[in-house]
């Protein structure tokens, strides 16, 4: 019985892996045939970035049960770390024009900068985690939200402008135009998170989420494991921040508002708290809806009556209604706390179209009768 389940799981992994390769292949082809400025690439890139940060938030909120709202702050740390350490020395006088070229006069390779951006975010998470992780639910959310806001203010402070360029833009750092770069980084990071969640540590995180008292009584060190989850989550949020910097080609502390954290939280909730695939699916859906699919609603030319329904900003109204509908009818999100698997997908399709299954049964019955 166990082996049957295992082989089914095995099959799901292989199909999932195949789908992923297919997706990457499709993107490669699309990049060859569609113009670079096509909206689909924006959606794919931003979707990949948000998928990573949503999964990192899910690790904390969904799998460890720590309701933290500091994600934008850690993304900011990651984005700035990447930008600061990769702006070419020659471009620095121009970027840091108000700060005499800044004080950092060296660059590190892109890969190292990406990892460093994660490490910086993780380091700050460690420091902030020491006092705040003793807090429970809402209080933890308030504390981490406050931390993110403080970071945003500090990074715009003139006095440390020699490093952060004050409230001015950071730019001219190396960027990547191909979607594949974003996907590669996001896939590697999400794979690491999935491996962690399915390891003995991931199981301990889930135990803490389900019942803290029992977890502690069974020998799971709460402080250590919460800290671990917080630091790892922030590490990947930092990397996704760096990806966001690369995507936007310019970065500014001002944009890492709490509204950004809420967007990520929304993605996690819509996807399903405690579902990695849910977070990934919903982040692409979310970005596609907010950036692309609903754009036509802003088009004033579409109005066929004298009432100006379609006008710039109308898509946001529709988007809000869609989200409300999702929250109303799918209270546990798209995936709940389950993961997407091909076998489950086919099962639900069969459930949706009972006629299909019946037809098969009848067919097999008639075959039996024929024999």
């Amino acid at each position, binding site marked *: 019985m166990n082996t049957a389940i295992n082989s089914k799981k095995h099959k799901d992994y292989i199909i999932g892996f195949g789908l992923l390769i297919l997706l990457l292949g499709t993107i490669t082809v699309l990049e060859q045939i569609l113009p670079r400025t096509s909206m689909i690439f924006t959606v794919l890139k931003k979707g990949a970035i948000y998928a990573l940060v949503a999964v990192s938030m899910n690790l904390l909120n969904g799998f460890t049960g720590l309701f933290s709202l500091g994600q934008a702050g850690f993304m900011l740390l990651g984005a700035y770390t990447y930008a600061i350490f990769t702006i070419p020395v020659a471009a620095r006088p121009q970027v840091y024009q108000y700060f005499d070229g800044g004080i950092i006069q060296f660059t590190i390779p892109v890969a190292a900068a990406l990892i460093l951006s994660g490490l910086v975010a993780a380091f700050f998470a460690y420091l902030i985690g020491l006092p705040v992780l003793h807090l429970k639910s809402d209080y933890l959310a308030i504390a981490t939200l406050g931390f993110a806001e403080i970071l945003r203010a500090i990074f715009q402070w003139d006095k440390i402008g020699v490093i952060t360029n004050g409230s001015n833009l950071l730019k001219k750092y190396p960027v990547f135009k191909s979607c594949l770069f974003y996907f590669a980084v996001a896939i590697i990071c999400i794979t690491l998170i999935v491996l962690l969640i399915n*390891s*003995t540590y991931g199981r301990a995180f889930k135990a803490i989420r*389900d*019942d803290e008292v029992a977890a502690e*009584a*069974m*020998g799971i060190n709460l402080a250590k494991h919460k800290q671990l989850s917080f630091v790892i989550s922030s590490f990947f949020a930092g990397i996704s921040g760096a990806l966001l910097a690369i995507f936007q080609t310019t970065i500014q502390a001002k944009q890492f508002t709490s509204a950004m954290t809420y967007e990520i939280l929304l993605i996690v909730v819509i996807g399903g708290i405690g579902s990695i695939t849910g977070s990934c699916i919903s982040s692409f859906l979310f970005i596609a809806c907010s950036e692309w699919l609903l754009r036509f609603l802003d088009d004033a030319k579409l109005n066929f009556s004298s009432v100006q329904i379609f006008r710039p900003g109308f898509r946001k109204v529709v988007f809000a209604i869609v989200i409300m509908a999702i929250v109303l009818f799918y209270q546990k999100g798209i995936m709940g706390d389950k993961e997407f698997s091909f076998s489950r997908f086919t099962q639900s399709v069969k459930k949706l179209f009972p006629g299909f299954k019946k037809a098969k049964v009848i067919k097999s019955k008639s075959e039996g009768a024929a024999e």
Partner: protein
Amino acid sequence: MSTNVLMMKDVTMQFGGVVAVDNLSLEVNKGEIVSLIGPNGAGKTTAFNVVTGVYAPTNGAVYFNGNKIVENYPSGKMKKNYAGKENGKYTKRIEPTPDKITALGVARTFQNIRLWKSQDVFTNVLIAKHLRRTSNVFTATFRLNRAEENRQRKEVEELLKMLDLWEVRNELCTSLPYGLQRRLEIARALATEPTLLLLDEPAAGMNPQETAELTAFIEKIRTDFNLTILMIEHHMDLVMDISDRIYVLNFGALIASGTPGEIQNNPEVIAAYLGEKEE
């Protein structure tokens, strides 16, 4: 050198003005089944929580296998308000968190079942093995601990087979019948490889037949796992059947201790807890 597995000395636990456990001293010897009984609110569960590190006692000490694992004395606000005895006898402050105490070999179950609800039976027990890991977060993430993981799975398999839970291993723990959930909680506690097991009302909510089964079950795990058991229980049949010794608490204080026979005939215990036999 004593054969005490567990010794509580002068343990007082005071919440504000309420003395929940009043100067409790007890001993549990190796291989014994000892019961802690008393009316509701007598402080039995609080005593458990002191032993397992959930609460630091207001005053007193706890020894495990001869080593002091918990010690505390009144301080702060309690310094002025302390209403217990033996003030000034203890001067150190040893307050380990519950996981540290579990790591020493003390496992417990809960009065209200506290299983990890979203997990299946097998995973519930497997998570308890996390305590005895040697892997760190990197070796675990990159699956370099496969040998250990397989060994732990094997151990869980054996444990579940021994406790007759193997057939339901893939069931969600909340879908099990009540008695099995209780047994699963014991299995989970055993997975932490304890030498002392604390059972908090293991027979709560069970019918007489289930209680009888539980009696045999507790006897069985004591010998199979070489355990010492301290138990809180209200089912007197169960208590009198399997206890080697009994401690009786009332309003936080110890009113009697002894063998089941002695306790049954103790007038103070009858007045406070057991009640007169109806003729």
